């Protein structure tokens, strides 16, 4: 009976599906048309405004920036600058990640949630500039001078994300584990951490997106290499084409790391988990 029904529905559905598919395709085409139009309009306005609205020295157009790119690569500082900035991000954000995760995990206990609440609020709400200057004036050009602001700006984001995961912990599983007398460290390793893993990944991605900005900011004040340093020098020399080329090349690189590399690892890591990888 059901088999017959299914067979009867099959041809009708396929026609319907075809119609739907065609509509979807048309919609996709329309979407791409507008998307490309958006690119053309924005880049066109940008290119035309340089020279018309603002002087070309003040607002270099996209073509000029693409032309400048080989020039800054030719200076030889391109890769070392990227390397310097990346090292800072990895060190500073790595420490923030450890600290933030520890705080996030501790918020499983209500007392610690209260204990760290204001610290997190401070970390989330205070501008990075403040920490950059405070770190610098206390530690000067020592590593702590740039580690401190990166940690202060990113740890709260990490811990808040992990705390969000903590709040959604499967209580029934933990209760069951407790009922069966599973020791604390095994409960943490086999229930809490696997449940928190996607939240940790999300925290890494958000933290990174904020972290690289703060890193560049600290370099503006306290470094003699790195992207921030190049930005400061070129803006002081009024070379806005060089300035934008540095900024945009690192911007693209950071977005690539964030959206492609980190997301790729995330997907690979969670491909066994249906609800996470398909969500």
């Amino acid at each position, binding site marked *: 009976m059901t088999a017959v029904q299914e067979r009867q529905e099959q041809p009708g559905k396929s026609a319907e599906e075809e119609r739907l598919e065609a509509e979807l395709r048309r919609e996709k085409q*329309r*979407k*791409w*048309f*507008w*998307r490309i*139009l*958006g690119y053309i*309009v*924005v880049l066109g306005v940008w290119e035309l405004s340089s020279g018309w609205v*603002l002087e070309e020295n*003040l*607002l270099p157009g996209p073509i000029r920036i693409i032309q400048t790119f080989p020039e800054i690569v030719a200076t030889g500082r391109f890769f070392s600058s990227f390397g310097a900035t990346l090292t800072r991000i990895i060190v500073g954000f790595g420490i923030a990640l450890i600290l933030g995760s520890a705080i996030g995990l501790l918020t499983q206990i*209500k*007392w610690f949630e*209260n*204990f*760290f*609440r*204001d*610290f997190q*609020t*401070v970390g989330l709400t*205070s*501008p*990075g*500039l*403040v*920490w950059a*200057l*405070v770190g*610098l*004036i*206390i530690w000067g050009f020592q590593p702590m001078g740039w580690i401190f602001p990166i940690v202060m700006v990113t740890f709260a984001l990490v811990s808040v*994300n992990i705390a969000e995961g903590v709040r959604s912990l499967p209580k029934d599983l933990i209760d069951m584990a407790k009922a069966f*007398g599973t020791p604390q460290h095994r409960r943490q390793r086999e229930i809490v951490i696997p449940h928190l893993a*996607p939240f940790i*990944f*999300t925290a890494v*991605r*958000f933290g990174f*997106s904020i972290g690289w900005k703060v890193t*560049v*900011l600290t370099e*503006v004040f306290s470094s003699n290499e790195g992207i921030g340093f190049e*930005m400061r020098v070129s*803006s002081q020399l*009024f070379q806005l084409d060089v300035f934008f080329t540095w*900024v945009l090349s690192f*911007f693209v690189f950071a*977005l690539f790391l*964030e*959206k492609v590399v*980190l*997301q790729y690892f*995330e997907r690979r890591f*969670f491909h066994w988990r249906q*609800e*996470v990888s398909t*969500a």
Partner: protein
Amino acid sequence: MTAVTEQVPKQQPPVKKDDDTGLVAFIKKPIVARLLFPTLFIALWLFVDGLEISKVFPAPDRVAQFMWDELRLETLARTNLYETLGLSLVRLFSGFAVSMVVGTAIGLGMGLSKSVDAFFHDWVMAILAMPALVWALFLGLVFGFGHTGPVLATILAGIPFVIINVREGVRNTPRDLFDMASAFGVPQNRMTRHLLIPSLMPFMFAAARYGFSVGWKGLVLAEVFASDRGMGWMIKFWYDAHRSFAVVGYAFFFVVFAFFLEKFVFDKIYERTFRWRPSAGAIELVEEEVEEHFIDALDPEGASTLPKQIRED
């Protein structure tokens, strides 16, 4: 064995009550836990200061003295604390107002039409991901020192958050309720008032909150490079004057200001706006939504790991 473990939780509540008078119970109080953090911080600060490692280390008493002097209008700087904060707030509010109005318009367009969404989406994301530092340096060179640079930086920093939240709000309007309202012949203006605005409210609130706080961060940075006064410029001024206690003192003003905004402005507005919602539980639910939304606004493509998140693309 199992009988014993079962008995233990049953016995715990009375034991806790007995402890209420002891020191342990005192420390266990939530308010004590909250106050313990700043206390420990100050204790650590005093301890490190007592070690006398370096001469530039900001001593707590000098920081306190500086802050007290600033509050009493005794300052070496060109403008006192209140003038500085007032000027920054005027800039912040004008920039915030523009980004709310323009952002809401674009966000509504993006939420209602897929073509408009496709047109703007990538560029909104690009502006969202652009560091405020870039705007600060660039606008400083273009407009020189004045109001234009900082206000524009505030707008550029805040507007993507507004756009994304409003767009998401429009997408999440309850369609079945709209269908029902039109079936019962409810007039358009009542539909807008009773359906669209209430359902947009949490998203508008999230937009305002994050637009405001991100705008503030952008403004402070722009004031360093594109202005010669304002809160951001002032902390840089003390940094350039090499007064570590003044930098730390000003940092505390920033922290206090942020706290004030969080606890006394946003939380109060929030309570007022959502007073009509039935229970305290509902408010918590919305808060979660807002929080998630913040995360979503930060990185809409990447929010896929959050279990509740439903992404269309």
